[in-house]
């Protein structure tokens, strides 16, 4: 078995990192996004739930959260686009000894979006649910004790994927405010960077005795547009929601237009603040695309209406599942959209969902899809 070597790209190219249950792949294309090249797999046999290509501060650093079913989790980094990898020794993403906890899986690696003021900050979300912060580009990490010590934590219940902190929303302006989502604890935010509060008001939880509890919601994913950081789009286990006060209150959207309000991912368009995309699945007990058709649903009016987008996506006997981190947009205009299925297909759209093409097939089950534009 030969290693795949480095990703071969030039400035302006698009990189789509595809984390699977058996390793990491990279799909690359120029800005036209019509002809794609697949490289990989790196980390053969390991689950890749988290990946990022950090292009801030003059670096081109791949960060990968890999989990071996036998040997546990590791965070690897590469500064030469995958030709060589470094694993910190000893491990630097670990719980302090006094917590008695151990990282089971790295679910998220998120470079801070404020590249001017926080060029070296990287956040990590892990299972059991916890937030870590790196000040050195993902080399070393420290636990966010405010969230770890939250009084709700002993009552958090794991979802089907485990008790995972899967969504991290840093302040795009580099302020202390930030938010996270945890399955199945819900949406939590801090306004001062130290004190965390549950912010799930309005999100229904029909799987709990109290229909709208303070916490315990199974939030699947949250996204937003940087120009409107108070406006959040959220895919819940039951329902799609919008908040205009940074999670202070939530309003359900899409119930009239979507074939199902169950789904995992939600993606905000990088160019149009009122545009977002969801990928409905039939329901809690049949987590496949409805009617055997793979369709992305787009709202261009902030959630008032949704339209189905399926041009180029399989529409016959396509009973597919797309996980929470397996749908992403790139940063170009119009946005490129990319989704990966649990059956190993990757589809991409170069025009904000108007048309789609198959970018890869027969990969292992896709766990995450992350994008970057090479600088």
């Amino acid at each position, binding site marked *: 078995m030969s290693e795949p070597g480095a990703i071969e790209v030039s400035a302006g190219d698009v990189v789509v990192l595809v984390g699977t249950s058996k390793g990491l792949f990279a799909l690359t294309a120029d800005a036209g996004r019509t002809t794609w090249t697949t490289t990989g797999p790196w980390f053969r046999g390991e689950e890749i739930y988290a990946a990022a290509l950090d292009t801030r501060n003059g670096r081109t650093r791949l960060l990968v959260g890999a989990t071996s*079913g*036998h*040997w546990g989790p590791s965070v690897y980094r590469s500064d030469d686009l995958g030709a060589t990898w470094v694993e910190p020794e*000893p*491990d630097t993403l670990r719980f302090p000894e006094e917590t*008695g906890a151990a990282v089971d899986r790295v679910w998220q690696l998120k470079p801070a979006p404020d590249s001017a003021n926080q060029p070296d900050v990287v956040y990590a979300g892990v299972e059991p649910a916890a937030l870590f912060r790196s000040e050195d580009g993902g080399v070393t990490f420290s636990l966010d004790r405010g969230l770890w010590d939250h009084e709700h934590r002993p009552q958090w219940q794991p979802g089907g994927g485990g008790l995972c902190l899967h969504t991290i929303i840093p302040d795009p302006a580099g302020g202390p405010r930030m938010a996270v989502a945890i399955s199945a604890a819900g949406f939590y935010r801090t306004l001062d960077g130290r004190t965390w509060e549950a912010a799930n008001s309005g999100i229904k939880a029909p799987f709990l005795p109290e229909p709208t509890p303070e916490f315990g919601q199974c939030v699947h994913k949250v996204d937003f547009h940087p120009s409107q950081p108070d406006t959040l789009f959220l895919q819940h286990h039951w329902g799609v929601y919008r908040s205009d006060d940074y999670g202070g209150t939530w309003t359900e959207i899409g119930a009239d237009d979507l074939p199902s309000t169950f789904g995992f991912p939600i993606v905000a368009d990088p160019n149009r603040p009122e545009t977002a995309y969801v990928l409905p699945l039939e329901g809690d007990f049949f987590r496949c695309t409805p009617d055997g058709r793979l369709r992305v649903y787009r709202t261009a009016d902030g959630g008032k209406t949704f339209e189905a987008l399926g041009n180029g996506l399989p529409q016959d006997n396509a009973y597919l599942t797309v996980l929470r981190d397996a749908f992403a947009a790139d940063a170009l205009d119009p946005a490129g959209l990319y989704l990966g299925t649990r059956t190993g297909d990757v589809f991409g759209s170069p025009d904000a969902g108007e048309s789609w093409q198959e970018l890869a097939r027969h990969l292992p089950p896709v766990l995450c899809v992350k994008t970057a534009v090479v600088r």
Partner: protein
Amino acid sequence: MREDGGRPLSKVVVHLAATLRQHAGGEASVELDVAAEPVTVRAVLDALDRTHPSVGRRLRDEAGAVRRHVNVFVGQDNQRDLDGVDTVVPDGAEVSVMPAVSGG
């Protein structure tokens, strides 16, 4: 056995599964100086953490638990079937670390 600062120092050979050897410079086995009396599986794994941290982290999590799909044998016996990490490693016995037959 010899003495190291007043503590007995034992030599223990640890055999590594093939997939672990890349984290030990390609070696199939390593010889450790273990300063404990009696020598236990825990003391052997602690010694391995010090000399080969990339191997050690793959055998136990940061809370000290042997990973679920890792088997540590003392001679022919799995430590899980004995006294866990408190299992005594007799003088001259060898330790083997193997991945469990599991996975998907």
